[in-house]
């Protein structure tokens, strides 16, 4: 565990303000925050709501590894990764990442790295609900 890394998985709404506060440091001039939100359509299909589920302990472990890699790669001073699980309505945030750095280029690049790696690695799954049913997203 590291004071400069905060990761969480929660059933409650996510907050970009909480992310900003978590990574704010007196020596950092730039904070980049990314929020991924539930869209009203995906691959041409209208979505009414979605449900995320996670293998929570493994996902948190992945988040910490992702955070450590990004901190090292971009010299980030602080990193935040939060993912929501349970039922989400349209427009709600499913994921919030944040990175703080003395300089803004690294804050942007680091935050981007966080979300790319979370999407690729974290054991989290998504069910999309349509009018008549639901599908598991990315089900091969």
């Amino acid at each position, binding site marked *: 565990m590291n004071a400069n890394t905060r990761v969480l998985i929660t059933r409650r709404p996510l907050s970009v303000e909480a992310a900003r506060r978590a990574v704010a440091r007196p020596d950092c001039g730039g904070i980049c925050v990314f929020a991924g939100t539930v869209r009203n359509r995906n691959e041409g299909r209208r979505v009414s709501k979605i449900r995320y589920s996670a293998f929570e302990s493994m996902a948190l472990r992945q988040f910490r590894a992702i955070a450590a890699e990004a901190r090292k790669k971009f010299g980030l001073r602080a990193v935040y990764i939060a993912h929501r699980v349970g039922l989400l309505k349209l427009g709600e945030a499913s994921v919030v990442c944040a990175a703080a750095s003395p300089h803004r280029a690294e804050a942007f690049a680091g935050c981007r790295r966080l979300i790319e790696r979370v999407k690729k690695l974290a054991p989290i*799954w998504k069910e999309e609900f349509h009018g008549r049913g639901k599908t598991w997203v990315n089900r091969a």
Partner: protein
Amino acid sequence: MKVKVRLFGFLAEEAGKREISVEAETAGDALEAAKSVISIPRSVRIAVNEEYAPSKRALRSGDVVSLIPPVAGG
């Protein structure tokens, strides 16, 4: 060796359970053995004790294998 295999996402939904028990010596064995309970596409990855692991990973007593369907977080 008897090994616990955890199921997630559509695998858990289709199996109607979150956990099965199989006989296996490697992580790949465990996946193959789980196919007697549930159809498993090639895209499913394996984790051992909460870390991704290759099929050839030898299992030790108490290891828990998890079958990880394609992820869709973010």
